């Protein structure tokens, strides 16, 4: 009901206004009737009309009578003399009848007046009764109004209460809604955050996977590169070693065609730890020259890479002088 009202405040207002209007009508209807009822008090339109009509009728009658008289006079004027006596008689009769009539009228009027006075009295009593009744009614009305007012107040109070309640409800609801909204927002935020987090996580994972893949690819490339590098590095270092040993090889004269093999063990930095002839040429000087060449070349060049360097820790030198 309240909700309906609340939903239709205009209707409510209109209803209230209607009620108020009705109340005002209830209250002031009597007054209007009051104003209508007393005849002598104020200008009674109805009575005035009645009087006037009569007057007017009389006047019209008079005037018509006058007119007729004048016409008759005019006509009588020519017959006047003829009729004068008749007329005078007649007028006398007439006047007599008229007097009777007037008397009658006066009587009637007095009767009417009495009746009117009785009626008036009756009406006054009725009026009084009515007034009492009105008063009672007014009181009743008042009471009713008060009740209405009270009711209205009650209603208002109730309305206000309801309003308040509604407001509270609204506030509560709003609070609730706010809380809900906030919760929702929070949830949404959390959801968003979770999504962001998940997204970030996914991104991170993707990136990690990508990184891993790239690292693997790079590692592969590096390994490949290292292998290629190793091969070329190995060749390079072997070349360096060969060159250095050759530079340090003082070959005894007349040793073409001899061959001597030396096994060499190197320290991590290429220092010659051991140089042993494993396959002698049979020529001591040649063998010695070969061993000396290796020792003189100490330290031998080593690859930069540790892994590759390991390969170079154990070397075989074949000394085969070319002619």
């Amino acid at each position, binding site marked *: 009901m309240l909700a309906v009202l609340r939903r239709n405040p205009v209707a409510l207002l209109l209803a209230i206004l209607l009620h108020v209007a009705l109340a005002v009508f209830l209250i002031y209807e009597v007054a209007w009737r009051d104003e209508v009822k007393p005849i002598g008090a104020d200008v009674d339109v109805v009575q005035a009309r009645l009087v006037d009509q009569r007057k007017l009728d009389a006047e019209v009658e008079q005037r018509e009578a006058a007119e007729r008289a004048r016409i008759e006079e005019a006509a009588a004027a020519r017959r006047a003399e003829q009729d004068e006596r008749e007329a005078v008689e007649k007028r006398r009769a007439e006047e007599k009848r008229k007097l009777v009539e007037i008397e009658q009228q006066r009587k009637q009027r007095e009767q009417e007046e009495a009746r009117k006075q009785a009626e008036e009295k009756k009406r006054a009593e009725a009026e009084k009764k009515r007034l009492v009744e009105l008063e009672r009614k007014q009181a009743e009305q008042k009471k009713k109004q008060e009740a209405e007012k009270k009711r209205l107040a009650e209603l208002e109070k109730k309305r206000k209460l309801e309003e308040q309640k509604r407001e509270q409800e609204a506030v509560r609801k709003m609070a609730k809604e706010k809380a809900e909204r906030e919760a929702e927002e929070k949830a949404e935020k959390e959801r968003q955050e979770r999504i962001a987090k998940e997204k970030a996580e996914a991104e991170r994972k993707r990136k990690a996977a990508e990184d891993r893949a790239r690292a693997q690819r790079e590692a592969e490339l590096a390994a490949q590169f290292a292998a290629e590098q190793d091969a070329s590095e190995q060749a390079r270092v072997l070349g360096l070693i060969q060159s250095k040993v050759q530079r340090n090889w003082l070959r005894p004269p007349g040793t073409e065609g001899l061959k001597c093999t030396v096994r060499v063990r190197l320290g991590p930095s290429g220092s010659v730890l051991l140089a042993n002839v494993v396959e002698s040429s049979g020529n001591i000087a040649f063998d010695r020259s070969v*061993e000396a060449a290796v020792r003189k070349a100490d330290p031998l060049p080593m690859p930069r890479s540790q892994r590759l360097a390991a390969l170079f820790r154990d*070397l*075989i030198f074949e000394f085969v002088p070319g002619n």
Partner: protein
Amino acid sequence: MKKLLTLILLFVVALQTKAAPLTIEITQGLEGALPIAVVPFAWRGDQGAPPPHEVGGIVAADLGRSGRFKPLPTQDMLSKPSRGDQVDFRDWRALNVDNLVIGEISPNGPGGYLVKFHLYDVFRGEQLTGYSIPTTARDLRATAHHIADIVYETLTGQPGAFATRIAYVTSIRGGTGKDRTEQVELRIADADGYGAQSIVSSKEPIMSPAWSPDGRKIAYVSFENAQPSIWVQEVFTGKREKLTSFKGINGAPAWSPDGRSLALTLSKDGNPDIFVMDVARRSLRPITRHRAIDTEPAWSPDGRSLVFTSDRGGAPQIYQVSVNGGEPSRVTFEGPYNARASFSPDGRLLGMVTRVDGNYRIATLDPTTRDLRVLSTGRLDESPSFAPNGSMIIYATQASGKGVLAAVSTDGRVQQRLRLQEGDVREPVWSPYLKNERNR
């Protein structure tokens, strides 16, 4: 594909790690003498006479003369240790010296010395050998040569030939015009030319000295009494005897490796031919019989054949013939003149005189490959003789109009004059190893 290649490469590398060590082939080396430092030997005596010779210097000179070593000049040495505890190998490595000899001499009784020396491998940082050799002032040079021999043998694997001797003929002219005199001497000196002693002296020519294989005797041709004859003389005693004195030429004696026989040239039958004489029995056995001149026989080390010079082909060339005779085969084909052949101690080479562009030069021939290598650069080089270790050839050459001795390493890399030569020197011959002097 690349990945596969990588894997294969890695695998190969891995395999190499497991399978075999890396092998590096060295083909190019500087052919040359071995740097060595011989520090002057320190004298450790505060009493008695200091040694008359600087032993370290003799050792260094010997080693240098061989052509196999390049001694570091004394002034270049950063330190001069004489004892093992004074050696800092870094000094010597810095000088890129392969080997180091240090030594000291201390008094050892009256007139005696004790020579101590050490040979080090500088790059190995260890001693290779070391000896204490008692000696005397007189034998000090011999001791030094002996040390040089030990060093040489230790480092090359071949015996050194420094403590050996050379015999040569020198002719000393005196006076002028009609008073002109000529003193011819057969001399023996250390291999470095020092310590020459005359063992035969004559006013007539002396030719073709030849060492017996034991180094105790020398056979030679002497024209004393105006008649060439072959004599054999004991080196240390001077005791000698005439071996042959046939009519005509008695020349070019050569000891067989076993020392029992002498190959020689005789023209007793009218034409010079090669004979072999049993020294003990004095019996002769003809080896060649040809109307051309056959001379200058030399034994192969195995004693089974002889090489000699013959002009049977029109010009002097080298031929080889069995000791049992038979048809000689020609050995030399290159050049218009090849003569005076002798075998290297290992029998692989022939040393000889060859004519190159009108000059007579010392050369070696590898009979198997016929590879002729001219070693000397003189105009009139003659009488090549191998050192007993085959590392050098001594020969006579002309300088300032007279004959001097020169030596060349067998590879031709080192040539040098021998000093302390008096007069016109010819016909040097290198002694065999002198066992009695090797007092190791």
